[in-house]
């Protein structure tokens, strides 16, 4: 079932949690709402679930207005960051809950409920723990029970609020691969909230980046990573270096260095910021005649297959970072204190806001 969000605004006192948000989630997709905490993504998710009411705007399920529909009638599955399992019920009863609270007419018989619950527990690979209490499970197991519980009522939409946020790194990685596989199996329209860009990139079909109550950009993981629409997105997805300078007639001046920026051919001495990802920088021991930024290596960090150089820019002492393959590093024989020349392979320039306009 598709979800459509139209002109959604939500305030908490003076704080604007959502500011005229529009969003479409096509049926069957797995979409990540990505952004820093306090950016409004959880509020958006809770409004879709009906746990929060918007000040203005509408929620449509499958083209039908569901804004006024009660949470219990929305047929959504919701997975909470801290699991919210019913602590006094066994794993089995937790999963069975949604089936047991149905109106008598629509309620399945005990045998049918048992079969459905065991199926779901098998799906999340926890059928051997059916009799345990939630407190006897690990975090990862609890979250899988929560997922089975949400899926038990055959929701039209699955909503997950930072589902892996409370888990440690290794379990988190395992679970998100598992979620991806699960989604490929059950194909329920899913929206999940995360502040972890790696998680969003790995799991989602589409990523929606939310900051300060607004959608900054949406697209496939590749699209948002390769063509960030705003400085915020650039900064949020991956490590970047920022260079402040001025653009003028297709060229950008950064200190003593000049970059070609053809998309700013019309610019007339405007201040701008250049964004360069740390792994999109070439390092050379000598100036190769190209426009390069000179720096001194301050620190080396070894990250398995790559090496992260921390440098001071010679012109103004600004800290820069460059990540190069281990092989390249060995080939150059770089060491601390060495002078090197950096040339960005890919630059994205955003004009900084003019003071008056």
């Amino acid at each position, binding site marked *: 079932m598709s979800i459509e969000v139209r002109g959604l605004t939500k305030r908490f006192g003076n704080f604007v949690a959502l500011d005229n948000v529009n969003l479409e989630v096509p049926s069957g997709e797995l979409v990540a709402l990505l952004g820093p905490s306090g950016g409004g993504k959880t509020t958006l998710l809770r409004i879709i*679930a*009906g*746990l929060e009411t918007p000040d203005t705007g509408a929620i449509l399920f499958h083209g039908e207005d569901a804004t006024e529909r009660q*949470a*219990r*009638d*929305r*047929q*959504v*599955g*919701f997975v*909470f960051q*801290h699991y*919210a*399992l*019913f*602590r*006094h*019920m066994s794993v089995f009863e937790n999963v069975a*809950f*949604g089936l047991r*609270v*149905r109106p008598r007419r629509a309620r399945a018989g005990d045998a049918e409920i048992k079969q459905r619950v065991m199926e779901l527990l098998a799906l999340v*690979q926890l059928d051997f*723990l059916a009799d*345990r*209490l939630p*407190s*006897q*499970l*690990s975090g*990862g*197991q609890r979250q899988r029970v*929560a997922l089975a*519980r*949400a899926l*038990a*009522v055959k929701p039209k939409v699955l909503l997950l609020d930072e589902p892996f946020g409370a888990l440690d790194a290794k*379990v988190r990685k*395992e679970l998100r691969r*598992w979620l991806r596989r699960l989604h490929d199996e059950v194909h329920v329209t899913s929206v999940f909230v995360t502040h972890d860009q790696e998680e969003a990139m790995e799991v989602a079909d589409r990523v929606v980046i939310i900051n300060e109550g607004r959608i900054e950009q949406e697209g496939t993981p590749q699209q948002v990573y390769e063509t960030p629409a705003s400085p915020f997105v650039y900064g949020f997805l991956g490590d970047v270096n920022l260079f402040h300078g001025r653009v003028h007639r297709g060229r950008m001046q950064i200190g003593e260095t000049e970059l070609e920026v053809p998309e700013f051919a019309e610019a007339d001495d405007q201040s701008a910021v250049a964004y360069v990802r740390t792994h999109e920088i070439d390092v050379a021991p000598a100036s190769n005649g190209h426009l390069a930024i000179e720096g001194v290596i301050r620190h080396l960090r070894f990250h398995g297959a790559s090496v992260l150089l921390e440098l001071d820019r010679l012109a103004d002492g600004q800290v820069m970072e460059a990540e190069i393959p281990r092989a390249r590093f060995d080939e150059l024989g770089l060491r601390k204190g060495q002078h090197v020349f950096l040339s960005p392979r890919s630059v994205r320039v955003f004009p900084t806001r003019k003071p008056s306009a």
Partner: protein
Amino acid sequence: MEPAEDRVSAAAVREPRWVRWTLIAVAFLFLAVFLFVPLVSVFVEAFRKGVGLYLAALVEPDALAAVRLTLLVAAVAVPLNVVFGLAAAWAIAKFQFRGRSLLITLIDLPFAVSPVIAGMIFILLFGAQGWLGPWLQEHGVRLVFAVPGIALATTFVTFPFVARELIPLMMEQGPEEEEAAIVLGANGWQTFRRVTLPNIRWGLLYGVILCNARAMGEFGAVSVVSGHIRGETNTMPLHIEILYNEYNFAAAFAVASLLTFLALITLAAKSVVEHRRPVLALEPVPEGTR
């Protein structure tokens, strides 16, 4: 990690043996003098003139009336305060609203105010010369110096017990389980009965026990509004006082022994409930993704 820290701090504050023994001895001595000796003396005094007189004092019509009234008042006050306590705790723990902290403060009012004053307030409101007195009289309702007034005063004095017990519990548990239940399609009643109530049942029971003990033992507020009509508006504590003032010590202590007995039962029930309060932190199953 935590047990290790505990050990460290325990070692850091470890006192010499004589200090520990002195503190323990002082605590026990204090308990003996102020609690145990009076407790024993109540029963000794009650039986001083023999079992026959003891039983006679209990089955005497005025005493029976006092017992009956006390039970009636508790039967009114406790359920009322369970309902109020649940409502208040729910509101405070699950919602943010204007006046929330005021409500929390007001719940404590009966603890802060002397019960005598609480009684006076009811006289002032509902007494013959009170604000609402004439109106009540016109409609033939008698609150003060009658059973309804006693129930009212008792309810007032005991109303923090259940709420106080539930608020921290429900705040700690947060609204998430209820939200999960609602999203899964449960209605309000199902959510309360299947999720909220099981989560708070031991806290609730604990509050009920304390509330009941206080409701049966309340003296000050009830004394003001009761009017001390023998066999009609005397609760057990008031009956005891009257007997005592009449120098009928054996009878006074006989009835007192009933109340004391009730207190002992309350203590026992309380410690049972405290034991039953779930400490379910059992060993987690190791992460297994077969």
